[in-house]
């Protein structure tokens, strides 16, 4: 797996491709130590099998324990039933184990793991422990920042378990997959910084793919994202996910993301920081 990462990284460096606060993937960098990030991700995806839209609401809290280790807890709420129901939750940890920083650039590597539980019905071949399946995921992420451009790539292993208590994972489907992502982010505004109050705008394109290991069924999606950062502390992301290729059955592959994010810096210090 590391070989793939090294290969991908070398491949990526050929491009001069800033910003790595991605919407659907995580960079190798963590949130600052002692800081708390709180966000609410909403998504509205068009159903392909039945009529209507699949709405998901995902509140999350991310905490930086120290410079290298961060934790996140997420909750999954959806309208798969008639009403909005909390279907599950997730715990995530990421450890940054390598950093090589220079002025205005860095290369970083991190390892991560996630465990999720979900009680919803299993209705697609795609494995998605972020709101659909119970299961775990573990992987490595590499991120390169060159001035105003960030490139990040992830390779991970994801395994689905039974959605307790009522929905065991269907025997006829492959229950583990390899995921790969490639994300580009660029700071497009401002050209020159004047203050922390200035609104920043980032444009991102993320590619997200999955192959079910057992049968080779795959998909590849593209997610363009426009991101606004206010007061160097709050974030608003607006994204659209579009399936590019797929050989598997998916219930709602295309739709919109809307994410609100706020950072509480430096929780431990008693000093009042403006």
């Amino acid at each position, binding site marked *: 797996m590391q070989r793939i990462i090294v290969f991908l990284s070398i491949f990526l460096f050929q491009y001069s491709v800033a910003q790595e606060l991605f919407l659907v993937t995580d960079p190798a960098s963590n949130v*600052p130590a002692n800081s708390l990030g709180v966000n609410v991700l909403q998504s509205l995806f068009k159903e392909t099998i039945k009529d209507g839209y699949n709405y998901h609401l995902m509140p999350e809290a991310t905490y930086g324990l120290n410079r290298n280790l961060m934790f996140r807890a997420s909750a999954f709420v959806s309208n798969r039933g008639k009403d909005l129901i909390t279907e599950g939750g997730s715990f995530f940890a990421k450890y940054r184990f390598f950093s090589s920083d220079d002025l205005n650039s860095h290369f970083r590597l991190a390892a991560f793991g996630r465990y999720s539980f979900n009680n919803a019905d299993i209705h697609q071949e795609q494995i998605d422990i972020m709101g659909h399946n119970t299961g775990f995921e573990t992987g490595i992420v590499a991120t390169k920042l060159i001035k105003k451009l960030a490139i990040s790539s992830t390779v991970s292993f994801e395994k689905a378990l039974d959605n307790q208590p009522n929905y065991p994972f269907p025997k006829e489907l492959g229950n583990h997959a390899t995921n790969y992502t490639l994300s580009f982010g660029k700071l497009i505004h401002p050209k020159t910084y004047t203050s922390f109050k200035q609104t920043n705008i980032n444009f991102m394109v993320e590619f997200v793919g999955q192959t079910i290991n057992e049968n080779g069924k795959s998909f590849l999606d593209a997610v363009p994202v426009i991101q606004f*950062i206010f007061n160097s502390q709050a974030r608003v992301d607006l994204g659209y996910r579009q399936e590019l290729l797929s050989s598997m059955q998916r219930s709602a592959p295309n739709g919109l993301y809307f994410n609100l994010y706020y950072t509480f810096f430096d929780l431990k210090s008693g000093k009042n920081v403006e």
Partner: protein
Amino acid sequence: MKTIHLQYYILITLFSLFFSSSYAQISKAEIRATGLTCSMCSNAINKQLKSMPEVSAVTTDLNTNTFTVVLKAGNTLTPSAFKEKVEQAGFFIGSLVLTVSTESISQKPYIQVKPIAKNNKQVQIKVLDKGYVTEKEFKKVGKTYQNLPSLQKLNESDFHIIALN
């Protein structure tokens, strides 16, 4: 009575002299951070620095990621305090320039790689140790000062410095 007072004053003077020179009264630190270009990242460092009780003000140049930290008088900070804060924000120091009293840097934990003239009361010094300059620059520094094995030791108990003015 007078003589007692005099002795008392001499004692206090000696005492305060001893203490003021036992640490390097840093009055200002200019930190250039590496590994970032976004204002949210700079803000993380800004907030970390402002959380230090010894800090009275921080100004930031977002385009060069340079943080100018004004410190309260009588602080006992050493360079490692700034490194700690920048790294907690998730970044690294690319350059650290301190304004210190000339008196105070002639002893531990400071090692002058070139003797620093004592013409002025205050002097600007640059820290050359690993973690206080960029990786590239540290390689260069290592070659220039091959005769200083202590420079290659990774510790926070001594700081190799050079004068800038």
